[in-house]
């Protein structure tokens, strides 16, 4: 049996294939979002905007997805990564 089919709930063949079909687009979305976020960081740095305003501008999602994907891909579960991609000035490029 294929390892994808080992879930105790039925993941649905179509649902699994669908995820893999759109994987590229989903990945691109993450990159696009990260670039957009970093541009916002840049503008914030240039115009010295209040960090609170910027958080609103990023629609409440305070994780830099590119950073979190990069850090998480180290694959070390013992290393908490939830703060690695936080939308803090220190995380800005």
């Amino acid at each position, binding site marked *: 049996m*294929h*390892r*994808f*089919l080992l*879930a*105790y*709930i*039925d*993941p*649905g*063949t*179509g*649902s*699994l*294939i*669908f*995820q*893999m*079909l*759109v*994987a*590229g*687009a*989903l*990945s*691109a*979305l*993450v*990159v696009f*979002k990260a670039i957009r976020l970093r541009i916002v960081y840049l503008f914030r740095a240039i115009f010295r905007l209040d960090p609170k305003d910027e958080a609103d501008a990023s*629609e*409440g*999602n305070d*994780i830099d*997805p590119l950073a*979190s*994907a990069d850090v*998480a*891909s180290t*694959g*070390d*579960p*013992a290393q*908490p*990564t*939830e703060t*690695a991609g936080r939308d803090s000035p220190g995380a800005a490029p």
Partner: protein
Amino acid sequence: MTSTGCSEDCRHASFRDPSGFLFRRDGVLYRQINSSYQSHYELLLNCGLYDELVRAGQMVPHDEAAIPAEVTDGAYRVIQPHELPFISYPYEWCFSQLKDAALLTLDVQKKALARGMVLKDASAYNVQMMDGHPVLIDTLSFEQYVEGRPWVAYRQFCQHFLAPLALMSRRDIRLGQLLRCYIDGIPLDLASRLLPKRTFLTFTLGLHIHAHARSQRRYADRPKQIRRARAGFSRRSFIGLIDSLESAVKKLTCPAVRGEWSDYYASQHNYAEEGLEKKEAVIEDLLADVPVGVVWDLGANTGRFSRIAQRRASLTVAWDVDPTCVELNYRQVLRDREEDLLPLWLDLTNPSGGTGWANVERMSFMRRGPVDTALALGLIHHIAIANNVPLDRIAAFLADLCRWLVIEFVPKEDSQVQRMLSTRQDIFNNYHAEGFQAAFNKRFTVEKIVPIDGIKRTIYLMKTRNGF
């Protein structure tokens, strides 16, 4: 006496996952973890995810219990989860409760992925309302993340959360009740057919509902295709999937439906603000000498009188048939951080039945009682006259439900009843104060009677003769 919350029925609700199950011994709730789940459980604790979620109030904590396993074959450990005061179900939640539960599930998934784990299921039944907000209750929902593997719970998340939320938001809020029919969530092909055509053009719903449903149809029974499409599902794609689902859920808003009784207090003239305050004082006075305990407010509207009862209660569940009232009530719970008030959506004339496998997987409304105290204020005319339920049947129903009852009798002279009778024949010969008392005297002893000044309504405090 308290609400049963999770009685022996707990085991009926946790048999699907081979990783373990709930059981009760000497009145205490435990969860057995089987050996097949050992490595995942140890990872959950060791990677810090469990501590993080419990600290954030997103997951029910547990203690490890040094007792023998319930089923020794294949047993690994027994834990004692902190018990919930009450079990509610997704088809009893208002829009924002379901939305908050969906966002919780996605947030937990994000945190899990960051620590090398993944949710192996995304059932709405794994979430319960506790202390005024949703929490994950299934400790066994996590497994180690395997790079390249798609989210096995994607279909379940879409069926349990996204589809009902989209239907409630974009078609009709009452479609949330479809969850009563479909215990594993609303089938995506059905959701796709029911949603307005314009939702095909929105990116997130177009992707996760319509295209997803199409893919399910196209690839059903073609598992070999998985091998071919195995180009992989990178971690970044996984993050993109969760972000996209989160964006989809956040964009859905509760439709501004003006509920039948949403402005009930403001529009009806029987109770002006002064009258409501008097009624509050009466309720508070009646409950002063009663061991209030757990309260069910039946027909709670937006919870004005639930909050009076809550001053003395350990938990108040505020049931109402109008999803907009429940929505408003829940928003107030969030705003005022009212931890022991739980608004829920229920049609008392057709309450939640026992559903799922053998009709016991999800408990019926009655199975979750009886409770210490019930309020039935401004309710009886809606049941007796609008729904033709005889008074003695109402009395029998309430006597099985509670020990103490605060009930308001609304006579025919009341303008609300007059309005109800204006378009139909008056076939309710026994609907008067004497008939009401005669019907209820068979099931209850009347402890106090308080007429309300200025109008002809009367509030009774009664004690059931059922003896529990």
